[in-house]
């Protein structure tokens, strides 16, 4: 019986902590940022016109015209507490292999604990430049109705967003960050 309980506990821990070991996301506790020659960092923020939307994961799709569509990598990135640490503006930092990516959708809960799941369609492209940290802009989502909402615009709030990003991810302090807005 004990071993069964232990197994169940272990299983739950694996599920709960799966985001912590994700190699693609920046974390507050990261001590140093080591990029391989084929990696780059992209930072972006998101703002939803309704305050009570909390995403729990987002999807990023690789864009590679030379690959068959079914072979394209899809990254399901779990949200971490650092993403929410700046109130209404969600801050995201990703370490990805060089290339072009599409920020596909955000999945989240609308309306607190007893809310329901809601998808935000982004469909915004961004480039990851090897060895560079780039800022891809602030994604503004317009809340048209409870049934459907999508990306309204990409704003360049470089100064403000970099300040927020450095607060969420201290490893970025003192690093050079360039602008390369998503499109």
């Amino acid at each position, binding site marked *: 019986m004990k071993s069964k309980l232990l197994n169940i506990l272990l299983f739950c821990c694996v599920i709960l902590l*799966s985001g912590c070991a*994700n190699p*693609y996301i920046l974390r507050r506790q990261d001590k140093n940022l080591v990029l391989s020659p*084929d990696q780059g960092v992209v930072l972006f923020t998101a703002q939803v016109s309704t305050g009570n939307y909390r995403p729990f994961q987002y999807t990023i799709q690789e*864009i*590679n*015209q*030379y*690959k*068959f*569509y*079914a*072979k*394209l*990598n*899809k*990254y*399901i*990135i779990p949200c971490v507490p650092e993403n929410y640490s700046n109130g209404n503006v969600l801050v995201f930092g990703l370490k990805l292999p*060089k*290339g*072009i990516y*599409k920020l596909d959708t955000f999945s989240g809960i609308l309306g607190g604990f007893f809310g329901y799941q809601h998808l935000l369609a982004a*469909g915004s*492209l961004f*480039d990851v*430049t*090897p060895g*560079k940290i*780039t800022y891809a802009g602030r994604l503004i989502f317009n809340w048209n109705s409870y049934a459907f909402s999508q990306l309204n615009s990409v704003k360049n709030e470089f100064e403000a967003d970099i300040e927020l990003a450095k607060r969420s991810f201290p490893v970025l302090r003192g690093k050079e960050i*360039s*602008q*390369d*807005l998503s*499109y």
Partner: protein
Amino acid sequence: MKKRIIPLFLALLLALPPHLVYAGTNFAINKPSKKETSAANQKIMQSVKSSSKSSTDAENAMSAEVDFYCGNYEASERMLTTLKAKHDRNFALWSNELGSLYLAENKNKEAKDSLTEAYLIMNSFEAFKNLESKALGLTGNEAVKAYKGDPYEKIMNSLYLGLLLIDENDLDNATACFKNGILCDSDVEGNLYKSDFAPLYFLAARCATTAGDKSKANDYLNRAKEAFYLSHPTNRLIVWEEQILRNKLVDKQKELDVFLGSVPLEKPASKKPTTESVAKDTKKYPAKQNFSGHSKAEEIESGAAGTPIPAGKKLNSREQKKVENLKSEIASLESQIQSKILERQENNKVISLPNFDNLMNLQNNVILCIESGKAPLKVQIGSYGEKAIFKLKPYKAKRFCIVIDNNTKREGFCILNNNDLMYQAETRGGRKMDGILKGKAQFKETTAQISTAFAGMAAIAATTAAFSNGNNSNAALIVAGGFLLASLIVGAASAAANPAADARHWSYLPAEIQLVPIKMSPGKHHIIILPFDEIGKPVKGRELESDIEVKNTGTTVVFKRIFERI
């Protein structure tokens, strides 16, 4: 108890969302560990080795593209040369991309050779023809076809090649390339978007002037002006609206023809040519492009009189009303088109044409080709990637000032601009393949839904089996098995359908190319290109300095690319 566990487990398994069972995408986070790959799986891995090899090629090609835009030409060239040596279905793509790379490196000779190889494949019907039938099948992927490029890629290949041939003083072949480019640009759906790329006409006119053929040169020049007006940003919205109206007009005219054709005749049909026969003839013998935007067939179709009702037709009052309605709609569309044409003509008066005399002046012995921005990016969208759309990465450098030998400044007035490729790419129109892909996507979606429904029924039957006794339980289990089998078969058919659109494109192209004819004495010169944005603000950090060698005779063609690297 044990008997009940199996059906219950089956029911639980079937309750899983089908996308988890038939997952087609690679989820990077949930990759299986190496230990999980058993010896039995190794055999399967070997059989798919070729596909993983092509996946590595794809990653290498993407890496080469990123290296190109980061300025790491050496790595990019190494990778592309390796890929090109494979002589696969992407040969023309690798050749084009290598051509762009060589142009950025100022290796004109190598660029010409590479672009010529691409030219031969892109303009050949026979090359890799065996692969085309595979793409049309339900399980075939469009991307298994050989790459031959969209019309805008073909015109760029012809433009580059023509310019490089001018540089070698091979004017006959250069003219042939420009003519080919014009022909390729006519392979688009909307009449107003046909052959609207002004540089091709201008360069053909320049070649004709050099050959001493003034009437031909004037003809090309007039067409260059028309193309410049049609594709000018001021006119684009009007042209777009006018094209929609023209498409509607053709549809209405066809509807009227079909309707009149379906009404029984008292006497044999008149031998007078109908719009349908004209349309058929037009397909056989494509109408010569004229720059009012009308083809001959359309002029007849949209004629003021409309389609004459064949003599001897008996129309009842309902039919007559429908004919009258259609005719009034056609007349309304015609008047709307006329007003759009007038609007365009008014706009043309305020558009400042580039100084064509300056462009045509052969004493301007250097053609400086300034390229800026990144090529339109073709991206697959839709549930199964069945649609391909273009996205453009914004770029700042739109205008240029050229400083020659630190004293002469040339600005704006003699630049042939507004040749942005996004406009050319977007105005391609629909393809027949789009319809096929749409059909495949519908099949995939419907079969997936049927499979899910079968799985649901199997789950219900399995649950029933778990809570029944004796024969009832066995019968329910058999039914569950049947539904499960049906679900798997239909699901497999759904998974096998491949509606993804082909997203391959010449991604090393610039977003825009501008031509600047300059008069320079033979020998070495130092040029500085100063970029400005749309409102004339300098784009700092993007200035380009270079030494160029001007030939003693003929025209020297120089390519300079402004990269907006971060």
